């Protein structure tokens, strides 16, 4: 894989994490909705593979990740638990655990960006 800009990758990951958080919110809000199937984002690796391919096909530079468009979609999660009469597949514990993962990854992401940003500023200072 060609060299990737650190800040670009960080932005991509934070957008992916935000969409994941949205999917989690949808699951938690619909934990009691009959017929609702729990959703999640596709794995980040898949997103990277997909966008890397399309990048080489078009041009160098930014990927044009719109902040408002979900450049990666959510899809129905696999579920192998008990089938409830309501057909609902949300497991609250799993959702809370995923939320914890999102938080940790997001904190690391912003910390990395902050650190490299400040290093850049240090070097640029007179």
């Amino acid at each position, binding site marked *: 894989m060609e060299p990737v800009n650190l800040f670009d990758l960080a932005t991509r990951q934070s957008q992916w994490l935000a969409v994941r958080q949205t999917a989690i919110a*949808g699951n938690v809000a619909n934990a009691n909705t009959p017929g609702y199937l729990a959703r999640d984002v596709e794995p980040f690796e898949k997103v990277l593979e997909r966008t890397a391919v399309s990048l080489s096909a078009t041009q160098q530079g930014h990927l044009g990740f719109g902040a408002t468009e979900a450049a990666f979609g959510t899809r129905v999660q696999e579920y192998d638990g008990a089938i409830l009469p309501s057909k609902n597949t949300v497991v609250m514990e799993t959702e809370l655990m995923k939320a914890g993962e999102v938080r940790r990854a*997001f904190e690391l992401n912003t910390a990395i960006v902050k650190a490299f940003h400040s290093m850049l500023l240090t070097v640029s200072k007179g």
Partner: protein
Amino acid sequence: MDALTATLKIAASGLGAQSERLRIVSENLANAQSTGNFPGADPYQRKTVTFVSELDRVSGGSVVEVGAIDRDPSAFPLEFQPGNVAADENGYVKLPNVNVLIEMADMTEANRSYEANLQVIRQARDLISMTIDLMRTP
């Protein structure tokens, strides 16, 4: 609308839905003993809430709404209370089809779901804060 703002909207809809559910449960509990006021009259009929979800394509999340507030069609239990205003010719009174234990369990679950939605709001708010913090000079 960016993903984190959409998250707030979705979680807020969850709060609203659970609040409504809690309201209905309280109504059921308050009227658990409400019989009719003429002989053979129907008592209070238990209410139920149904949620529906709506997928928001742009953000990938689904808001939740109260679809309908229905009446529980199950039969009214009969109790022998000949002195009651609502007693029929055999002295039996129809009592509300509200099971207090079921309502209490429902209330506990509604509270838990409410808390979970609140957690989501707190987290989304924190994530937004962290992002803005990047700009702040140390």
